[in-house]
């Protein structure tokens, strides 16, 4: 079976002074039926990549294949089979939800009935409400509904949950899980770690226009070599500096942020008693201590030395 998306050595350069290379040699393969996440900070090239995949932007170089077809040759056929949502589309506020979907439905040769799509995104109560009256979460679900109305095999969703409240985000996650369960392929971009971890079968971490890591969230985290993270703060932060912890058993790395320590740990049951013992010996008193599983955030920090939310800020 062909991959849903395959792109090879993708490059996008925006002419200007100076020219900006938004994507610099990006390779990506999305299999049919999976939910794939493009993860990265703002400005990493996620939107540029997805817009090239949507046929809205032409690559400067590289090869793109969507559902086994190519832009420039099979445009009409690709458009019939993909559904997209842009990062920011302001649908006509004066139209009703059902009217908007009927309009989008009319563009496709085959597809779902507007009522059916409204049911799937749980907007039944708002079916005859004007778009202008919808909440942010409802608008995003309508945007996904517009992507669904052509009954696509492949959904390309650019930051579907950005700016939504936690409850609306969860509703969208459920919706995307349903789509995947129906056998559709979903490619989404996000800069939320938890979203990628919970929702995506596989992710590609994108930074500076390149994929710097690719795989299942679990595997990427496992590749860190340390499954757990111990974070703690001390009562007397002045005395933190001379603290030596890297030699403790099962500790892979130590990072000191502004006010807390962060240990990457392979075996929690080995590292934790040793840490407490070391602190007791050196006379430090804990002000707080938490442990958690390593996350994609830790993967990103380890790979780039930056936090995802920092965007282009210095390490």
């Amino acid at each position, binding site marked *: 079976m062909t991959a849903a998306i395959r792109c090879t050595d993708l490059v996008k350069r925006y002419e200007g002074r100076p020219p900006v290379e938004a994507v610099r040699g990006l390779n990506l393969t999305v299999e*049919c*039926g999976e939910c794939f996440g493009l993860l990265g900070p703002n400005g990493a090239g996620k939107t540029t990549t997805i817009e090239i995949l*949507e*046929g*809205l*932007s032409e690559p400067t170089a590289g090869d793109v294949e969507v559902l086994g077809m190519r832009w420039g040759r099979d445009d*009409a056929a690709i*458009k*019939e089979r*993909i559904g*997209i949502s*842009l990062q*920011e*589309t*302001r*649908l*006509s506020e*004066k*139209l009703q939800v059902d*009217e908007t979907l*009927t*309009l*989008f*439905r*009319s*563009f*496709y*040769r*085959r*597809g*779902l*009935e507007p009522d*059916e799509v409204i049911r799937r995104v749980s907007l039944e109560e708002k079916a005859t409400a*004007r778009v202008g009256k919808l909440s942010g979460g409802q608008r995003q679900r309508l945007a996904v509904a*517009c992507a669904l109305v*052509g*009954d696509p*095999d492949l959904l390309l969703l650019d930051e579907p949950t950005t700016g939504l409240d936690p409850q609306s985000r969860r509703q969208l996650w459920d919706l995307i899980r349903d789509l995947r369960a*129906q*056998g*559709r392929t979903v490619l989404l971009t996000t800069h939320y770690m938890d979203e990628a971890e919970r929702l995506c079968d596989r992710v590609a971490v994108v930074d500076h226009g390149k994929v710097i890591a690719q795989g299942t969230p679990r595997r990427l985290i496992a590749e860190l070599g340390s499954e757990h993270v111990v974070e703690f703060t001390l009562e007397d932060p002045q005395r933190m500096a001379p603290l030596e912890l890297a030699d403790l058993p099962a500790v892979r790395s130590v990072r000191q942020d502004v006010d807390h320590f962060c240990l990457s740990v392979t075996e929690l049951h080995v590292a934790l008693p040793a840490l407490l013992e070391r602190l007791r010996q050196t006379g430090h008193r804990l002000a707080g201590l938490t442990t958690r599983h390593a996350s994609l955030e830790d993967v990103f920090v380890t790979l780039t030395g930056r936090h995802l939310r920092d965007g282009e800020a210095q390490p």
Partner: protein
Amino acid sequence: MNRELPSAKVTKRYSPLGQLILARLREFYREPEAIFWVYGFPLLMVVALGIAFRNKPVEQMVVDVQQDAAAEAQVRFVWEALSKDETFKVQINDPALCQRRLRTGKTALIVVPPSASGGAYAYIFDPTREEGRLAQSKVDDALQRAAGRVDPLPVRTQAVQEPGGRYIDFLVPGLLGMSLMGGGLWGVGFVIVDMRIRKMLKRFLATPMRKSDFLLGILFSRLLFMVPEIFVLLGFAWLAFGVVVQGSLLALVILILLGAATFAGIGLLVASRAKTLEAVSGLMNLVMLPMWVLSGIFFSSERFPVAMQPFIQALPLTPLNDALRAVMLEGTSLPQLWPQMAILAGWATGSFVFALRWFRWN
């Protein structure tokens, strides 16, 4: 691929063009402000201008007679001679006041009676002002006749005030042309740029929607909005001012459609690249301003120098206004208007062709 999608099959036929037109109509009629600007504004214009230029009862001329204690009889003679005629509105004032009133334009003419019987009557007026010259001539006639002049030639005058020859008759076709221009440019240009800003064009581009359906949808919906617009304007002009169409209604309809298509094309051209509403508004005003002034909306374009005429005649609104007037006022038939229609068709075709070549979807 294996999925449980019971309703994923070819079902109802949806017409994309029909849906696009329907969406535009809904957007439009749910926007009260837009309705005012498109329908209310031209109507207010007709009312305001109709009132301003209504056929006034013959205008009165204000004439001042200079007070002079030594020439009381002559002052009274002038006063009586002029008061008989309703054309004049006579005031007797002292010299200083007369001068001031002439300077400030409150009076058109000062009559200075001679202090001795048999002396000359003096007229003081500003010869550069039409009303001054007119008052001088009329007052002189009235005084000479009152003094006993007999006109040797019998004359008869007839005032013409038939519908068709009044200013309002001239104005209505001009306003019709103006509203076709404004409606076409705003109704098409503004809507497209707004959709580009909202990224709707980009969103549509990612669907299998045919671009020609989209553009035709904009054009047809514009033509539909225009129908009530024209009915309201012509209906009101007919009811309130008795403005009638002398020529064939079919000819008028064809001209209106041609004009609307032309300005829709120009609207499309103006909007083909603009990225902001400010940019498109500026461009549209730039396009419309010369035509507002030159193309004969409020007064005939022939008032401009001969050297400018080739340029003025080439603007799309000029032939449209000329043709609308010819049909409405003179009952001219369409074949006689082929030069005007050719210019319009040229603009319509050219603007559509270039607009499609330059149009940016994202």
